[in-house]
């Protein structure tokens, strides 16, 4: 424009907060603080019920390992701006599939009676994981290539997968195998408590998920898609492939949840995990991941799972609430928590 313009040197604007805290970290911090508060309050209130102990704390992870696993898968989905409502039914499906493969029953298909052999648990688990990932993949394909809304596709997926589980068996199936005995006897003692395989699987998956989200191109592409899908396409990122894979990954994670469910209970149930999708979404959102995508973290989700677990455990330990009041209390605590987190985040921001 004019010659004087050359003299103008651009000065980057001052950042509003002094600490070099990225915007993402604020909800995470708020979640952590509230989680701590909640735990402390529960420990004080339920001190004569033995709430404050290491084994109870570990049980938050063991009893909710499958919630944690589905939540990790769900985090990736939500980070990309989608949603997956099929995770709950996937648990029932994989558990009943494993149980059925280990205890086959003859069935008729096109007037032929087919009898499958008895499968080794590891084979059954492998089949279940592949089936779960495949179902997730199909949903991803429908979402990506036919541009259907994720909410809708996975809602239909929830019906479909639950239906498949019912087709496999309406009644629950118990399973037994020497391997299962070994697995449930396996424990690493820590102080007065011990860590068992559900926690270990959860921890391994959680660490891998953190690694994937932070240190792989796949993980960063997920954030980019959630941040702005259009831009991600223009930036030349493999958006289509990644989105399909995200749903496959979520399918895998929830199938793994189903495996844990079956192994921890020695049983498969088509009704298992029903309604878990909303708990999962709640855990992810409480963990500071935005439903609009792009912002959030696996670490936050783990905190979210912890919070949901603490709320549930506190009500179970409290032990005098009637069914109705227990439901209302869960809602009330959820409300208090969300509002608190909201206040904390907006305070930290200003």
């Amino acid at each position, binding site marked *: *424009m*004019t010659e*004087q*313009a*050359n*003299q*103008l*040197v*651009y*000065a*980057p*604007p001052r*950042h*509003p907060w002094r600490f*070099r805290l*990225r*915007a*993402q970290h604020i909800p995470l911090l708020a979640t952590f603080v509230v989680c701590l508060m909640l735990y402390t309050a529960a420990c004080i209130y339920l001190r004569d019920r033995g709430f404050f102990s290491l084994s109870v704390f570990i049980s938050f992870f063991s009893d909710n390992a499958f919630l944690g696993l589905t939540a990790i898968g769900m985090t990736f989905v939500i980070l990309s701006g989608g949603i997956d409502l099929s995770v709950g039914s996937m648990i029932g499906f994989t558990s009943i599939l494993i149980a059925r493969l280990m205890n086959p029953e003859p069935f008729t298909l096109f007037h032929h009676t087919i009898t499958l052999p008895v499968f080794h648990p590891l084979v059954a688990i492998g089949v279940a994981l592949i089936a779960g990932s495949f179902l997730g993949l199909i949903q991803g394909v429908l979402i990506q290539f036919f541009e259907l809304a994720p909410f809708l596709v996975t809602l239909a997926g929830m019906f479909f997968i639950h239906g498949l589980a019912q087709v496999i068996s309406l009644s629950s199936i118990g399973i037994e195998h020497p391997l299962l005995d070994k697995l449930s006897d396996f424990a690493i003692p820590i102080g007065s408590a011990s860590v068992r395989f559900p926690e270990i699987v959860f921890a391994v998956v959680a660490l891998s998920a953190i*690694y994937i989200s*932070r*240190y*792989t*191109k796949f993980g*960063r*592409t997920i*954030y*980019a898609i*959630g*941040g*702005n899908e*259009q*831009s*991600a*396409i*223009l*930036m*030349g*990122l*493999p958006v289509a492939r990644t989105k399909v894979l995200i749903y496959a990954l979520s399918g895998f994670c929830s199938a793994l949840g189903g495996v844990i469910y079956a192994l921890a209970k020695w049983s498969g149930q088509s009704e298992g995990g029903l309604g878990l999708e909303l708990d999962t979404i709640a855990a992810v959102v409480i963990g500071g991941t935005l439903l609009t995508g*792009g*912002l959030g973290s696996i670490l936050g989700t783990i905190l979210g799972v912890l919070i949901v677990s603490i709320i549930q455990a506190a009500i179970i330990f409290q032990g005098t609430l009637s069914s109705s009041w227990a439901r209302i209390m869960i809602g009330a605590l959820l409300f208090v928590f969300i509002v608190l987190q909201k206040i904390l985040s907006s305070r930290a921001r200003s």
Partner: protein
Amino acid sequence: MNATNPILLQAMSVTKLFPGVVALDAVNFSARAGEVHALMGENGAGKSTLIKVLTGFYPRDGGQILLDGKEIRPKTPAHAQQLGISTVYQEVNLIPTLTVAENIYLGREPTFFGKIRWRRLNRLAEQAMSRLNLHIDVKRDLGSYSIAIQQMVAIARAVDVKAKLLILDEPTSSLDSGEVQQLFAIMRQLKSLGLGIIFVSHFLDQIYEISDRITVLRNGKLVGEYLTRELPRVELITKMMGRELATFETGLATSVASDSDLKPPILEAKRLGKRNAIEPFDLEVRQGEVLGLAGLLGSGRTETARLLFGIDRPDKGEIQIDGERARMISPADAIARGFGFCSEDRKAQGIIPDLTVRENVILALQASKGWLRFFSRRKQTELANHYIKALNIATRDADTPIKNLSGGNQQKVLLARWLALDPRFLILDEPTRGIDVGAKADIQKLILSLCQQGKAVMFISSELEEVVRCSNRVAVLRDRRKVRELTGAEINEHNIMATIARSDA
């Protein structure tokens, strides 16, 4: 540059059809290595479509594209990038929630056995930014930086791909003049390295400063290719418009009667301020005047407007309207008092994309009337058609979804939305950004006619020449602070520049 520069990319009779429309009609275009080639045309001439065909965003319906003499058929922008064609768009197409460094290297991060090497990535990003003379913290979220910085990051990303051909689609529309110079320096540097650059801009000064060659498009057809130094401005404009310059240059009054000082103020801001947005300031807006706001991007112009329109809550000071203290905590309050605000971010804060032109026009008026007193369909269409005609909005009819209109026409619809309110005081934040010369002149004329009707206008623009031409009074902002007010004869580009550039407050 000279004629011996080898042709890098050649597009031959490229055709693109949209349902019912020929967006590109057998267009020929070529870009040479080591040259800046400007692509000119009005809104809707087909510039963006051509670029999107070149970058593989749209498949072409006919013709050939040769790159280095070999036919290419880019399927996606990623594919085009691999072939050597990188693009920087007008609207920053990056991820605001990721860091600057990531945005530069997303998709080609340095890895070690599949693990992203963050430290190396950040160091590389710092180097890439410093090559553009920008020393910023690359570990911070892109979204925390101004649009200008984001644009620079986008260029850093595009250049770093080792592109043969760089397409800059209106990169300067959100940059201030200093930043434009930085950009040009970079462009010259890239040019000397043998890169071909396609440059799209509405700023004639910039075109003449940087480009070597100009191709003009009109209505999807090629008008011609010219050497810049052989094409006078007036001729360029004539070729773009298809009509003579004089028809829209006349009628622009250079100044309005200066007796506006005598009229009572509509609005007074007293020590109004908001932390991290704008330092407390005093400001008066009087009937029948155009108050210009000048300053660099991020100097607090938009923030000032947002405070006056009740979008943000001030934490200091007060607003007086007609001499009385007023409580304005929402745009609805401001509208109720006869204010209007045409925001700078058309896409995010202006249009309702799925709604029709008609509905977009009546929206603010209807909101001010409340939901019970609903305009009849007939009245709505009448109103919309009135503005379509008055503002010369190019649309098939009033019931076309606004998202189907070109940027400039969307802008006019938004103006119509505010004009329909018949406001006493209208804030226009960058109303002319990214729109063509004809529409620009239309809008400037409109501003003047508004204040002739006794209305007040606050005019925010990055183009100083425009501010000078339209305003009776200019408030100059620097570093989130109002530093000076210019009136009457003081208003000229030199004074404004000097005020902005002076380092002491």
